[in-house]
């Protein structure tokens, strides 16, 4: 695009830009008349002369967005959002660009634009609504809730869309009862909100009301038979309840499917014990993703992070740093590579006395972004050195408070709760910081055979750091990064660390949970029927409770069948993983 890289300092002033307003109105009119080619040509001509002409930018942005020409749309939207001018126009431009980014799932990138919209028009409900969406989807749940509620206040009336988004936020916080009530209000106002209906169905699953959830989805699909998101929700419900055939039938012919649907097909075959079909579907989905979005593993940032943390977090350097005093509760960090079984362990622990399931809310990783601001501006982790100087000694205490506050707000910290589990995948990077906040927090590391982890992750429609999910080699290297980081921390820090094998957890759940409780210093007595994974748990509940099923070993050692059916499947990753297989003891009879 010819004007993308222009120097902003060279732009004409607003008055000069106004000289072309008439032409811009003409371009807008062409656009409204759906004469996109002519509108774009005229807008380009205007922008060649005046690159900051607001209306021309808007027209061209909308056209490039519709054409899915992302790089151009990104540049135009950002430029539009950055223009000076009346507050209302600034708010409008920033809202629009934030909304565009949200639509692409780029919530974190949308944050500064949503914030700029709120700052420009603090009393605009729409701006707060968008801010709420950004915060909710980036994990800042309580802050997101505040903005949704503020948007409703400013509107001074019920709004079905905002209410549905608020309900989703509360569902994410595990406040299921409240969320249910708000969904009812939202859907009464906007029964046409298919996303809201889908959210309600997911809420019902989390509550364990599977029959009701199925019914909601069936009704919704009857109303919106072409809605792919609802259909996917139903497929996922089918898979969670073992209805593999129904799921495959619902997904329809593979050639008409999008990558998330093809991946769901792969998972269905996986559940059905059909390695060949599963891998074919998964490989197809990943191939399409690569083709369409260029997704491939990007190790550079992970590599730099590993190197930086290994250099900083050494025994000699960490030992003199001050530690926070004990807090209101003790977190129990459930460490593990994605799909290693930390969710299952959290579910089981939550059914024993003294535990609350904290899931992945407000992870320690979030604190690292606040640390430079609190510690004089140096980058993390070097900023932690400030804790050695003067009032900096209070830094760990302040960070611990920042970690605890959202858990209190969510109702996780209650008198009967001594331990709140934290299963954020990112914790593996931050054990050094965790050591300063909670020097003696138990760390339960759920180990699982790396080949099984690769299979589980390659089949999931979940984006991992560095786009590691793009293929088995990327996943293996991502695993290698995790394992190297953890080995480093375990060598350099005194940790209260217990490894627990997923394979043992599913084979003998009561014994495994008993071991964890004993390790933490609690009695090992386990409630009867724990393996059924359906004992009552006090709210709030995390979303993964929707998938609570009786403990079973169906996914353990799955890779063996895949190796037998596809002997070359793991050949490429073997050199990367062999040292870890040996170190973890998975290379003997029990292992590969």
């Amino acid at each position, binding site marked *: 695009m010819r004007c993308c890289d222009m120097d902003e300092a060279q732009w004409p002033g607003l008055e000069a830009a106004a000289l072309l307003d008439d032409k811009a109105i003409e371009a807008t009119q062409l656009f409204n008349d759906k004469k996109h080619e002519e509108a774009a040509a005229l807008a380009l001509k205007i922008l060649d002369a005046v690159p900051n002409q607001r209306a021309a930018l808007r027209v061209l942005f909308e056209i490039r967005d519709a054409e899915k020409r992302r790089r151009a749309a990104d540049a135009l939207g950002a430029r539009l959002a950055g223009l000076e001018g009346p507050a209302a126009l600034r708010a409008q431009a920033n809202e629009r660009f934030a909304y565009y980014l949200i639509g692409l799932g780029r919530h974190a990138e949308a944050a500064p634009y949503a914030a700029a919209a709120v700052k420009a028009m603090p009393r605009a409900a729409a701006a707060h609504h968008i801010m709420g969406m950004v915060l909710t989807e980036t994990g800042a749940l309580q802050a997101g809730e505040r903005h949704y509620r503020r948007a409703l206040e400013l509107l001074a009336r019920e709004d079905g869309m905002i209410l549905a988004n608020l309900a989703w936020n509360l569902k994410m916080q595990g406040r299921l009862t409240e969320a249910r009530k708000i969904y009812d209000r939202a859907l009464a106002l906007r029964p046409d909100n298919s996303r809201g209906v889908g959210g309600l169905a997911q809420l019902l699953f989390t509550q364990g009301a599977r029959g009701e959830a199925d019914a909601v989805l069936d009704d919704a699909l009857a109303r919106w038979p072409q809605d792919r998101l609802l259909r996917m929700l139903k497929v996922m419900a089918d898979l969670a309840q073992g209805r593999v055939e129904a799921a495959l039938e619902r997904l329809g012919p593979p050639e008409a499917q999008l990558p998330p649907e093809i991946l769901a097909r792969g998972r269905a075959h996986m559940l059905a014990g059909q390695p060949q079909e599963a891998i074919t579907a998964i490989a197809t989905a990943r191939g399409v993703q690569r083709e369409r979005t260029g997704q491939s593993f990007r190790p550079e940032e992970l590599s730099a992070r590993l190197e930086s943390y290994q250099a900083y977090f050494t025994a000699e350097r960490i030992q003199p740093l001050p530690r926070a005093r004990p807090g209101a509760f003790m977190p129990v960090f459930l460490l593990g590579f994605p799909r290693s079984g930390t969710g299952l362990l959290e579910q089981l622990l939550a059914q024993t006395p003294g535990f609350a399931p904290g899931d992945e809310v407000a992870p320690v990783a979030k604190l690292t972004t606040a640390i430079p601001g609190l510690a004089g501006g140096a980058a993390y982790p070097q900023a932690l050195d400030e804790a050695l100087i003067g009032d900096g000694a209070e830094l760990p205490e302040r960070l611990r408070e920042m970690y605890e506050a959202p858990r209190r707000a969510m109702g996780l910290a209650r008198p009967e709760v001594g331990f709140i589990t934290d299963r954020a995948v990112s914790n593996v990077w931050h054990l050094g910081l965790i050591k300063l906040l909670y020097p003696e927090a138990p760390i339960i590391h759920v180990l699982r055979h790396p080949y099984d982890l690769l299979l589980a992750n390659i089949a999931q429609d979940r984006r991992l750091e560095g786009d590691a999910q793009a293929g088995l080699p990327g996943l293996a290297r991502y695993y290698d990064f995790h394992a190297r980081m953890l*080995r480093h921390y375990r060598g350099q820090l005194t940790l209260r660390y217990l490894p627990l094998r997923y394979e043992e957890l599913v084979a003998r759940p009561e014994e495994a949970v008993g071991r964890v409780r004993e390790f933490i210093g609690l009695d090992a007595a386990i409630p009867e029927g724990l393996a059924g994974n359906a004992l009552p748990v006090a709210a709030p509940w995390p979303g993964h409770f929707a998938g609570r099923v009786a403990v079973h070993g169906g996914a353990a050692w799955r890779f063996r069948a895949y190796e037998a059916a596809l002997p070359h499947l793991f050949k490429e990753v073997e050199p990367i993983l062999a040292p870890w297989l040996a170190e973890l003891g998975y290379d003997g009879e029990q292992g590969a």
Partner: protein
Amino acid sequence: MSGAAQPGQVVMPLAEALGRLARLEQEGRLAEADDLASRMLAAMPEHPHILQMAGIVSHRLGRHEEAIARMEKSAALSPDTPLYPRNMCEIYRGAGRLDEALRAGLRAVELAPGDARSHFNLALIHYERRELDEAVRVAEQAIACDPAFAEAHFEKAEALLLGGRLREGWESYEWRFKLKQAEGMLPKTDKPQWDGTPLDPGRLLIVGDQGFGDCIQFARFIPWACLLAPRPVLACSAELMPLLRQIPGPARLVTRWEDTGEYDAYIPLSGLPRLAEATLETLPPAGYLAAPEALVRLWGERLERLMPKGKKRIALVWAGRPTHKNDKKRTLKLAQFGPLFAREDIVIVTVQKGEQIAQAGGYYGRAPLVNLGPEIADFLDTMAILQNVDRLVSIDTSVIHLAGASNVPASLLLPYAPDWRWLLHREDTPWYPSLRLYRQTRPYQWEDVILRVAADI
């Protein structure tokens, strides 16, 4: 080097190239030496001296098999060069191939009966093979060739002491300060070494020489010295201060030579047993060190929080200081303790310090492991931790002395030919009654040792 020069190549005469190779090796410029050796070997693959030098470079780079192959070829090409078997004797010893080392050593002595170094190398092999009388005899031959050969005297001392012949051993042991590595251990002074005759109060300087373990072990003789020379000044490293402060008698402890003040005589700590005419039956008892109670309590509380209850606590040290001359013989990898880690009724508390603590990062045994090393600040911390465990399992390093001196039960893993102080053929030690010794039955073989240690816990 002979041969036609290729364009862009510099041709160097062989003698010059060999000289350069030797220089690079001696200066520790091993990568350059390796490169030069490879190029020389490519040009002259059958030249015995190039092979010999290249073997030495390989050895120093840790490529032991390659070193041995090169040197064996060298010796085969020039079987009557005494230097080659002399070198190989050492290389085989380093590789734990003691039979071959002995053959090479005997051949070196046969070829050069007047070469003190050849006799000395052979004495080392006899020590490693626990042939102590032979070790003493051959060391004496080395001394006969070169009466000022300090290392040979010291080797003789070690063989005598290991055999329990303490009185004779102490005399030769005095040569230790003439060893190259002993430089700086004693003060630069014209005052004499103390001979054990009474001195006025404050006129004796006691020097904490040698390693931490030796100082801890011989500190028991300080009260005896104080009877003859009251209120001495004790010079030691800062790390040892908190420990040696516990020994009654010295007026002051200093860490710098310039702080010693005036004295009439000095004595290294390791010289006290000789003066005291110590025998295995007359050693002052252990129990002369103790961790401060408050520190013991503090670590006790921490360990209570950090560890699962109801399990035996086993403290573990698996590696020594890598620069120690015998470190290869004594140091293990953490992973070698498999039989211990398989036990579910114990919890491992590693009190390892130094770079080797990183190995704890790869531990996945059944027994829970707490890597305490990163939070241990000094010897008092270690000693306080040891008061809170059921047993220490350790190689021969300073921590075992701490355990022994403070009467903590401990299992000591010893190489086939251990340091002299652990003697031979016994499971206990008169120096520290709380220790149980587990000896290698074959050189460099730890498997059965660890099995026995694990079984006895």
